[in-house]
């Protein structure tokens, strides 16, 4: 009990140092519990939604299939049920300069066992005769809609007015993006919508036919069991893509996010716990060294070794417990905020926040274990001493010349304080290494944080600035003759230049790997789209063969020279293509090929699916309006708008980099502060003696601060390659189907990080100065060592 009081008073005496340690520890546990809870929340929400609303096991897209042939699919062994629907992106007729689209789906009122059923969160039922529509929940909110409001849809150039009957969510569209280039939802301009089957058929003019088929499997059946049979069955209907649930776009995004959360929940806490344990280790080591005499007394009084050890471990235990509980509670609160943030991206009927302290408990166990381990390591050595040895002062450190002293010009340029500082650094190697490591970590994290903007720039805006050089992209409803496309577009006032390309939906295969993607057929002399290599040079596409985006190549484990089997609805049989190049690209994953080569392979000549346009800016809106009414035109993308959309979205997440920078400053400060406090308490007598000799507070401070500046300099030098490695590590960890993260370091990241590091070195020195001022010279010198 008495020792407990001693421990508490000892800790209060150095509260800032222990507090810093607690903060770093609780940050780790905060991340752990917050991420873990969010993971549980998202997993629960997904499982419930998928289960209750009968998510499909496989999704097929065909050109057209008669409705009455759907039942054939149910004949395939392993298929439980199959449902066909019509799906089409339609434009919403709105004022303003943005393109707004809805993905219109058939909702079969009569069907009692719908696949990918719809959750109606507000509103009333659709009926077969009225022009009623259900709108995606987020679109509804973002556009300030009300039930019974009207909405105008433009289908095949004709405007139809619908009445909004409800707001809905679907398990198929938990994460709603328009295509693989959009990697964040933009609910104001794109979402889902449902109309009844007769209304849909009438609207798009396709009676008793479907273009999407959803399938569920019997229990025990896996995708690979039935895949080939489904494919052969759907081939006749122009199979465009067949995907299992795992690779379905919305689910894949969700899965990636959960994977990211899991890896964050597993790695981040250990990073912080590692640092705080390291701090704790050094602190307790120092504490036991300075309390050497007290340990001797305790032993002389008859305290057992284990009792003394337990006493010093109690410091670690207190840190572990406070850090663990604080982190757990903060994390649990933070999980509410995170869950709310996730609601902005993922559409679930209800994400319940599993307000559990389970992870606080786990976190507590982890932090206590880490602390006790650090405490044990930090204290074990001193406790081995016999009481008589412990009570006699420690032998002074062996003093010898350091290597630096041999560098004559350097050594002679130092003042006496400088020389003392350098010798002290070399002698206290452990502490110097600890400080360098701490600063190194803080510096590197800061570089990563400050690189966020550049990273986003490279990831997204490079795509717009250097790759997609067009002003407008027009996607046609299907294959149309290139000449027809050209004349249609050149006829528009303000269009200065047009290039057509072909985007072929394909399934590529190599061994067991299989991916659905598109191959872009580009002409040799294309000007409005650049395919760039790693050095940002334009790739010559004149060679015959297939270029694959890097992430696709990595995922399929293919390299230059590999032959791939390619299936496309454009060709009855499969074709083969040789990979002749890998293209580093951060957004989307696809293939590129020379237009002539692609035409030769598919047999289609002079066709286009897409056109790139150069237009005069002031005519842009007029052109868009005109194209919206054109019969063959599917979608129109105005580059400037897309760019603005991204910029707005990403700007709102810029705070992430500030949070990271803040964390690194706290960690850096904790480390520098602790190491200076330790250094100060170890050298009280030495510094007090210097004060007695007549040195001013500032002169004494110079010695301590000179040491820290040297260490800071070393840490920053080492921090440069460390930060580069960190970025590379992050970029390889975050490579997905949808995007890859570049490893570019920001232009000013290093400069800002140098300032950041200097800031917390300076802050900790303010405290050191305060302590030197307070040094009671007479008392310190009177005390026996």
């Amino acid at each position, binding site marked *: *009990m*008495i*020792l407990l*009081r*001693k421990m508490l*008073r*000892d800790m209060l*005496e150095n509260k800032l140092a222990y507090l810093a340690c607690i903060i770093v520890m609780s940050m780790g546990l905060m991340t752990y519990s917050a991420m873990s809870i969010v993971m549980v929340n998202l997993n629960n929400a997904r499982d419930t939604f998928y289960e209750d609303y009968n998510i499909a096991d496989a999704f097929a897209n065909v050109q057209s299939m008669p409705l009455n042939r759907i039942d054939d699919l149910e004949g395939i062994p392993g298929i439980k049920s199959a449902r066909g629907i019509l799906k089409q992106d339609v434009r919403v007729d709105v004022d303003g300069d943005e393109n707004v689209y809805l993905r219109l789906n058939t909702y079969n009122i009569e069907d009692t066992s719908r696949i990918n059923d719809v959750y109606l969160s507000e509103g009333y039922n659709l009926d077969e005769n009225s022009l009623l529509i259900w709108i995606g929940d987020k679109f509804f909110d973002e556009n300030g809609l009300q039930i019974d409001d009207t909405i105008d849809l433009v289908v095949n150039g004709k405007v139809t007015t619908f009445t909004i009957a409800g707001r809905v969510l679907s398990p198929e569209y938990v994460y709603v993006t328009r295509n693989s280039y959009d990697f964040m939802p933009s609910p104001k301009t794109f979402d889902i919508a449902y109309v009844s089957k007769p209304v849909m058929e009438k609207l798009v003019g396709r009676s008793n036919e479907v273009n999407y088929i959803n399938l569920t499997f019997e229990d025990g059946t896996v995708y690979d069991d039935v895949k080939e049979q489904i494919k052969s069955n759907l081939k006749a209907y122009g199979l465009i893509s067949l995907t299992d649930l795992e690779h379905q776009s919305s689910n894949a995004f969700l899965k990636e996010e959960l994977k990211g959360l899991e890896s964050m929940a597993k790695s981040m806490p250990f990073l912080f716990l590692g640092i705080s344990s390291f701090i704790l280790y050094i602190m307790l080591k120092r504490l036991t060294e300075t309390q050497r*005499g*007290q340990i*001797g*007394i*305790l*032993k*002389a*009084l*008859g*305290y*057992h*070794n284990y009792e003394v050890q337990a006493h010093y471990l109690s410091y670690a235990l207190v840190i572990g417990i406070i850090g663990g509980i604080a982190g757990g509670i903060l994390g649990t609160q933070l999980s509410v905020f995170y869950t709310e943030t996730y609601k902005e991206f993922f559409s679930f009927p209800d994400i319940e926040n599993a307000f559990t302290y389970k992870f606080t408990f786990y976190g507590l166990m982890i932090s206590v274990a880490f602390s006790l381990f650090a405490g044990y390591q930090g204290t074990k050595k001193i406790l081995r001493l*016999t*009481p*008589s*040895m412990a*009570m006699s002062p420690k032998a002074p450190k062996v003093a010898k010349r350091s290597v630096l002293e041999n560098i004559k010009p350097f050594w002679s340029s130092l003042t006496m304080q400088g020389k003392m500082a350098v010798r002290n650094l070399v002698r206290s190697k452990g502490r110097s290494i600890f400080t360098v490591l701490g600063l190194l970590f803080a510096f590197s994290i800061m570089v990563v944080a400050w690189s966020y903007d550049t990273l986003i720039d490279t990831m997204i805006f490079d795509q717009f600035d250097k790759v997609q050089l067009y002003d407008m992209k027009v996607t046609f409803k299907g294959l149309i003759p290139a000449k027809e496309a050209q004349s249609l577009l050149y006829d528009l006032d303000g269009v200065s230049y047009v290039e057509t390309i072909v985007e072929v939906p394909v399934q590529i295969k190599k061994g067991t790997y299989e991916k659905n993607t598109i191959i872009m057929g580009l002409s040799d002399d294309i000007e409005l789209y650049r395919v760039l290599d790693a050095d940002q040079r334009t790739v010559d596409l004149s060679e015959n063969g297939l270029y694959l985006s890097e992430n696709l190549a990595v995922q399929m484990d293919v390299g230059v020279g590999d032959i791939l089997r390619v299936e496309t609805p454009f060709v009855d049989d499969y074709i083969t293509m040789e990979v002749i190049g890998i293209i580093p690209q951060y957004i989307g994953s696809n293939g590129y090929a020379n237009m002539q080569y692609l035409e030769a392979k598919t047999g289609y000549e002079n066709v286009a699916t897409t056109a790139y346009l150069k237009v005069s800016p002031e005519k842009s809106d007029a052109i868009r309006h005109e194209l919206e009414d054109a019969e063959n035109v599917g979608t129109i993308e105005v580059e400037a708008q897309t760019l603005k959309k991204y910029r707005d979205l990403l700007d709102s997440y810029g705070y992430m980099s500030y949070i990271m920078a803040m964390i690194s400053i706290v960690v850096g400060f904790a480390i520098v502060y602790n190491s200076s406090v330790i250094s100060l308490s170890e050298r009280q007598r030495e510094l007090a003696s210097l004060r007695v000799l007549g040195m001013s507070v500032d002169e004494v401070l110079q010695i301590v601060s000179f040491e820290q500046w040297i260490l800071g300099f070393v840490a920053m030098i080492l921090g440069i390659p460390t930060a580069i490695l960190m970025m590379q590590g992050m970029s390889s960890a975050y490579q997905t189907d949808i995007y890859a993260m570049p490893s570019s370091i920001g232009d000013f990241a290093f400069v800002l990080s140098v300032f950041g590091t200097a800031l917390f070195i300076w802050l900790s020195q303010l405290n050191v100065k305060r302590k030197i001022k307070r040094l009671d010279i007479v*008392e310190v010198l009177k005390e*026996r060592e």
Partner: protein
Amino acid sequence: MQTVLTANKLSKHYQMGEITVKALNDVSFEIYEGEFVVVLGPSGSGKSTMLNMIGGMDKASEGEIYYRNEPLHEATERRLTWYRRNAIGFVFQFYNLIPNLNTLENVMLSTELSDHPLDAKTVLDEVDLLDRADHFPSQLSGGQQQRVAIARAIAKNPDILLCDEPTGALDFTTGLSVLKLLKKFNKTYRKTVIIITHNAGIGKIGDRVFYIKDGRIERIQVNEKPLEPEEVSW
């Protein structure tokens, strides 16, 4: 009188680089229950080493030492701790109080350990410091700190009180009051007190004086009529 401590040819050697230092060399003695012993010698004579051996704080290199019938020279670390815990009370030259514990807590630190402790407050009252019970060491004078240290040692109710230069850091008057306290403990509780000092004046108050030099006991002097502390000066 019953023997509490017996040493037979006790030696302690330290290795200092290539040189072996014989801090204690073939020392033999007996100390009896209730005796007041003064170990007298100049610095470097081996006094402190002897204190470490007697106090169970260090192990002998050669020879034997017994506490009653218990061989301390072959005791385990655990047994030595038991010995320090129950049989020995230490008083050090520089008091060695725990700075972050107040007066009463410093005393309670040792009462918590002992199997048969005295009441901490009673002992503090005996050393005249009950009114300073909640003061921290930094708020006490040297003499007061040493009295707390004595109270801490006594409160365990040990068989032997082992004092290493207890007046070494104190002025004459304060030192005198400390010696009086030790004498009082010796008489009141009939406990053995061993004082280790370089101060020849203090020798006169002991029942016996061990003169120690160069790691050996030169001679043992028996004081037929030991003086009271106030009768000596140094």
